[in-house]
């Protein structure tokens, strides 16, 4: 391989690119895990919660959906330091991304639960299931089928949003490509390379989501 060709430069930058890819993956997985867990709790609170609690969650969800993610990330990055909370940029970014995604997932889950026919809950009550049993054995299993496809979309969104961490200096996959570009000026090649990698990840996720959607489409309750 010749010096200055694209493949040579990728080979030179392989460790930095791989570590960037790893950071993108870990940021995505962490964000998805946190957002799914807390989003599920908030989503259930939004549907069944005590009224003032429901309002609080509603305000949180609506507020976060009206603010750009980038502003949240920058706010977390500059703001947390003010309160002597010493977080590395990676965690500031993950916290901000998760806070944003929680709102989306909570809303998806509320929609999924409310789309279930009332009859399911009534039947569960009629056979004497307690609230937590109704949730665990009836509502959540049924709602999962409704929620899974939009949840996959949110996951793809999260992977795309991790690129914003590059703005606060987290060397994730996009920034590792930009660093390579800064060394060798192969602008188009490296951006296209990054685009293809993101495309492969997200295309896989979205095809999986579409497949699940088709599989669950015939379920009627």
């Amino acid at each position, binding site marked *: 391989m010749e010096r200055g060709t694209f493949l040579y430069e990728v080979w030179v930058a392989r460790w930095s690119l791989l570590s960037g890819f790893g950071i993108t993956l870990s940021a995505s997985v962490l964000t998805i895990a946190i957002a799914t867990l807390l989003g599920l709790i908030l989503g259930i609170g939004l549907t069944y919660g005590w009224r003032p609690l429901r309002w609080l969650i509603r305000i949180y969800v609506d507020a976060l959906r*009206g*603010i750009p993610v980038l502003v949240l990330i*920058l706010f977390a990055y*500059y703001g947390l330091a003010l*309160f002597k909370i010493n977080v590395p940029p990676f965690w500031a970014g993950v916290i901000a991304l998760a806070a944003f995604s929680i709102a989306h997932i909570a809303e998806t889950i509320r929609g999924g639960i409310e789309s279930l026919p009332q009859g399911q809950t009534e039947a569960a009550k009629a056979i004497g299931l307690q609230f937590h049993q109704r949730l665990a054995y009836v509502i959540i299993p049924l709602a999962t089928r409704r929620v899974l496809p939009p949840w996959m979309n949110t996951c793809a969104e999260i992977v795309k949003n991790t*690129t914003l961490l590059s*703005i606060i200096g987290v060397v994730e996959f996009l920034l590792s490509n930009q660093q390579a570009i800064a060394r060798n000026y192969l602008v*188009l090649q490296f951006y296209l390379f*990054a685009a293809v990698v993101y495309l492969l990840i997200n295309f896989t996720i979205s095809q999986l989501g579409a497949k699940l959607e088709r599989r669950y489409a015939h379920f009627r309750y």
Partner: protein
Amino acid sequence: MLNYNFNWSVIWRNWDAFLDALLLGLGMAVLSLLVGCIIGLLVAYARLAQNRVLQWAAWAYVELIRNTPLLLLVFMCYFGLPELGIRFLDKVESFVLTLSLYAGAYMAEVFRAGLSSIPRQYVEAAKAIGMRPWQRQRWVVLPVMFRITLPSLSNNLISLFKDTSLAAAIAVPELTFTARQVNANTFRVMEAWLTATALYLVTCYAIALALRAVERRYASIR
């Protein structure tokens, strides 16, 4: 822990910059939505066309754009196009171009769903009274489709407005960039970001309310 002294005078001194930034963001969002609608309409028709090549090309465009991070597209357009000899775009134009292409892919999906949800009888009735193909599109299909897709259009405008924050990455002086500058110049971290956040929120809600009113006016007729 919370001994932070607020000093809002910094914000008042920079208020004009904040407002200009907000207007720039709104302008970029509206322009991108308009261009995106044109692209989206063409792509939606291409996806529903008989021609296999057109269908495939439209599908590829939508999937390519929707599965690539917007920030990467912004950088590709801003740093990549000059490499291809396209050097006449400034920052704002380059960003609007990116956002329009991005919006086009999303609008294509919206319009495709809208076009395929139009009852076949409408078109048949139009045929029966002797309308030509383009007349059927112009007077029957498109007006009905726009009413059906209006809610998605307003949601898209709001997301596009939020997406204009990414223009800060290529130093377009919009709201996020301005907040960052005020933050860097004055160290009034909370004030700068709270102001930006509040302005984004208020604008998003104002757009939502205004468009709900429009939607009620043109409530879809079935």
